[in-house]
């Protein structure tokens, strides 16, 4: 297993895509750092109409949340894009290029071939996720000191969050081919994340929670449960309480994610990736 995983991991590491993602991340982090340092240095950087500084109204925790509100969506977009491309690359690429017969003819079971080639993108995307979010959090913390509310939750939530996209794109690639699978996963992800914000608002504001759209949104986030993982990462990584929960809920943040909420996306991912295995096991290798 380890040896096969190593093959797939090496395959991924050699892709230019990874370099591109790291360059985009580095450039974005530099810009983010620039923005953070400028904001922190500006005397009374947040002013209201009366000219009175708002710094007094916002705690460092609020500022930390606001800073992450700037960086988070971009980091999430890069990471989900990377996961979609990597997840749809290794196995579907091997199949489409006709190389799978070379690997499948070796003395290895389909199960081992499947797990090794599919786990590598998950591992790599998760590692990139840790790099992205921990770097961003450390940068923010350097300017707006805060204590993470639940770091273990953030660390656990990262692979769960990534796994939803990974499982979906892997299995869909086997069903419909690489490009359609990428598009469908991307659209589902965006749709589910948006609906997740409505679900979060519904939890905070009772009137929203009773509306029809709340039920629709809830269903969508159950069908493609990408939302809770992302919220759990931020809930664990950032301070627990802010004064602007409702506002942040719309932007994909929540301070109220329990570890139990990660169980559903985890089981969902495992079932979907198993469905992919069933398809792969029956596949006629060309």
């Amino acid at each position, binding site marked *: 297993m380890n040896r096969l995983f190593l093959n797939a991991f090496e395959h991924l590491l050699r892709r230019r895509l990874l370099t591109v993602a790291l360059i985009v991340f580095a450039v974005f982090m530099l810009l983010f750092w620039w923005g953070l340092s400028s904001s922190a240095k500006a005397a009374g950087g947040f002013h209201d109409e009366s000219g009175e500084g708002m710094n007094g109204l916002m705690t460092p925790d609020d500022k930390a949340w606001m800073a992450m509100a700037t960086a988070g969506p971009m980091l999430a977009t890069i990471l989900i894009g990377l996961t979609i491309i990597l997840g749809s690359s290794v196995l579907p690429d091997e199949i489409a290029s006709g190389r799978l017969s070379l690997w499948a*003819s070796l003395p290895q079971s389909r199960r081992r071939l499947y797990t090794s080639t599919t786990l590598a993108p998950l591992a790599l995307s998760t590692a990139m996720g840790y790099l992205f979010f921990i770097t961003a959090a450390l940068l923010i913390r350097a300017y707006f000191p805060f204590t993470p509310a639940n770091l273990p939750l953030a660390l656990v939530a990262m692979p769960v969050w990534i796994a939803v996209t990974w499982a979906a794109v892997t299995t869909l690639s086997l069903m419909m081919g690489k490009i359609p699978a990428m598009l469908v996963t991307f659209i589902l992800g965006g749709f589910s994340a948006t609906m997740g914000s409505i679900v979060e608002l519904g939890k905070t504001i009772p009137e929203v929670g009773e509306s029809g759209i709340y039920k629709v949104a809830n269903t969508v986030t159950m069908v493609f449960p990408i939302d809770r993982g992302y919220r759990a990462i931020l809930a664990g990584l950032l301070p627990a309480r802010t004064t602007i929960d409702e506002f942040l809920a719309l932007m994909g943040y929540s301070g109220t994610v329990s570890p139990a909420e990660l169980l559903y996306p985890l089981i969902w991912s495992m079932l979907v990736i198993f469905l992919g295995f069933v398809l792969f096991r029956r596949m006629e290798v060309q």
Partner: protein
Amino acid sequence: MGTANAITLRGVSKSYGSVRALADLDLEIPEGSAMAVLGENGAGKTTLIRIVLGLASRDSGWAAIRDTDSRDHLARRRVRYLPERVQFPEWATPRDVFRHIERVRHESSPGDFIERANELQCGDLLGRKFGKMSKGQRQRLALALATAGKPDIAILDEPSSGLDPMGRILVRKTVAKLASGGTTILLCSHLLGEVEQVCTHAAFLNKGRLVANDSLENLSRFTGAAEIQTQEPGRMTEELGRAGFSCRTEQGSVIAVLSEDGTIAGLASAAANSGVPFTGIQMKRETLEDVFMRVTERGEQVVP
């Protein structure tokens, strides 16, 4: 040659939708033999290989490598495979691919690979990316990868595909060396001359059915003619014609048709009496191409 079978197929059938690729196929490939699987395009050769390697499922029947069901990956432990269409990652070098394969096989014999690559005159390409190689170079390296070491069974699907004449000669030498070293060969090729030189047995498929399967010697019939090797084919043809034989020259030899009641002794006597020096005389057998035409075009069956 041992008595056990390296590869066995019993009653194997396989269809793709309404198209029947293999129909109730029985085939045994003895340990240490070099078996060619021949047939027209779409005859079922590649499907047969894919079933043996567990790459495709079978609708019915049983396929085994040394008595282990071919669907069990452990059956492929000592099997090497060269696919018809060789594809490697463009970014990878032959060394990378060999390392990947060795990881899976839990083996380490880079020396064997280098030696085989040198035999195939591609040893200088081991560090070059596949994306920067010609089709022929890739093919040679693919064969080196598939035959490095001393595999028990080598399954080679069109190993000479895309190669220049020198490449084909090197492939023939490599396959012959493997066969002489005791490796069981299953070879699919459209180059019948190549097959005649390296294989001991041949199986012919026609529309998924096995129509002929025997040693090359048994498959090839006497043609009713004899071949006389001489430095003066024109004169020999003339003289034998006078003696009542129907003759023609073919590639520097004289081919004489024997009458139904004639024997080679009578021809030899006529040749000796002609006064034209000759170095040999032998009954002419069918070429593999003749056998191919007989069993695939005319539908004759030769299954022992």
